[in-house]
């Protein structure tokens, strides 16, 4: 039974599966970084839809029109998580670029540390 409210969760599952598939099967480092970012967005979507209440307003008490409010904590969490995600992806991209400069390849199968 897919209602409008559970639609985001379906999207989350699809996004997570997509990103995992990319991480498992894509050899290009940039694509793996993209997969990480997609997964981060999926988790953010998950958090934000947890706090959503149908017909709710923004959780600001001052001048509030009354009625249901969406939960404030997930929004704070998501904001933090977005920032962290950006930092992580930026760092990963910089590693990938430096790695490309040294190894001359983007292929994860050409890695040298093994055994």
């Amino acid at each position, binding site marked *: 039974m897919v209602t409008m409210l559970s639609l985001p969760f379906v999207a989350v599952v699809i996004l*997570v599966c997509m990103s995992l598939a990319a*991480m498992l099967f894509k050899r290009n*480092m940039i694509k*793996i*970084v993209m997969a*990480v970012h997609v*997964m*981060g967005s999926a*988790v953010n979507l*998950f*958090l934000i839809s*947890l706090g959503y209440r149908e017909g709710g307003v923004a959780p600001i008490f001052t001048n509030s029109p009354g009625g249901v409010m969406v*939960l404030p*904590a*997930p929004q704070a*969490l998501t904001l*933090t*998580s977005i920032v*962290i995600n950006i*930092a*992580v*992806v930026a*760092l*990963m991209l910089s*590693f*990938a670029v*430096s*790695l490309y400069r*040294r*190894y001359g390849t983007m292929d994860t199968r050409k*890695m*040298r*540390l093994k*055994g």
Partner: protein
Amino acid sequence: MMEHAPALVIAFPLFAAFASHLIGRLGSRIRDIWVFASLLLTWLFAVFLNLEVMQRGTYAYTLGADISSLASPAGFPVRIVLVIDGMSALIAFMAVSVTLASFIYSRRFMERVSGGGESADRYCSLVLLFLAGMLGMGLTGDFFTLFVFLEMTSISSASLVAFFRKGSSFEAAFKYMIISAINALFLLFGIGMIYSQYGLLNMAAIANEMVLNFSFLDKVALSLIVSAILLKLGSVPVHMWKVDVYQKVPSSVAVMCITSSLVGIYVLSRILFSVFFSMSALTGWMIVCLGSLSIIVGVSMALPQKDLKRMIAYASIAEIGYVMLGIGTGLAGMSSTFGTVALSGGVFHIINDALDLGLMFLIAGAVFYATGKTGISKLGGIAHRSASLSVLFIIGMLAVSGIPPFNGFVSKLIMYESVFCLNPVLSVIGILGSILMLSVFVKVFASVFLGSPYKGKFREIPLSMTAVMWIFALLIILLGLFPGLALDGLVSPAVEALLGHGIYMGVII
């Protein structure tokens, strides 16, 4: 001032991290003094936390509240709460002590290997950030802060892994970053699942809710969180990233990396003991199985390695396996005597692990400092050049493989004599692991230290590095000869804190 020690112990290194970059402009000497002073101050705060816990028992600290001990003014916790008990205070103390030692060691080390200047500034701030992350993970009482600090340690340590700016160090850093991003996202996913049911993020409050109804979704969340943390601490079968990282990270940071995976062990046991304690039998067996697997795989993969640091990294996977063996048995036999004994062995092994493997990595760093090499087959005959280094190595070797009368033996003895009650095969695996561990390090000793005298250029090892290594060695001997010191003073409060989930919930609710 001192009542805010739990917050300050995290905040101070965080502040010092960013300030050290600015202060670095004034000169490297001033910066070193600044970093050293701030580490010393943090260390004093950590010591104070331990003393406070001994007096007051478990207590909570609410960030930003008027009355810091009042965690839940409305019946449920509203702010970020730090919980200080025997275990978290011990972990905080260990993290700061190791960082302090590593910083003293690293001054001359980094000067030689990276040339000081701007990069030394970066090094200092990253190390302090790393420390702040570990402390945060150790002291936090809620899940989301845990996630934030986890990311903080990941980002700062990944930058440290790439510190030498070689191709292979970027490779290790890239792998590490992918792994830690996945790890953090799975953790966050699990946290979200719990939040969706209870609307809470505080661990103790969630545990309190879970006593009444433990749902299917909780089980999924438990699995996600536990596997994420297992990835973080590098248990088999998700240990591969760890060897790459330890091989490429500067030796002084490798010591901290060991501590950070021990913090991971702490987080794992905190979650399993204090939050999901109703599943303890099952999770305990899971940890025990993965721990024994880690021992076997870690030690057997260490044997054929050709790089000194990579080899010690595999050995550290096995040592983490021992800790998991002890803690898992403690979980599976939660109400029995042998469970408590095994848990104390595991917690004691956390301390020993940091000391023994820490010493090993420091020695590997000293060898690298002196010769510029870490490949085992390229070295040889160092004992002719530096007897002190080889004596240190022998001490570390015997301690890691648990030969009496060193500290590793005590914790392993405690574990063998308790985990066999759960299943005798576990003790057999432990004993086998420790003889294989011995052969790993005998191989290193034979090929790096013995043989005909070393011919190449051998740089004299500076006093600051030797001193730190000897401090580690003396602590190893001290804890070996007087295990009661650690067992009574540090381990037993920690064990009580882990087992007393009622008290843990009580300070919040």
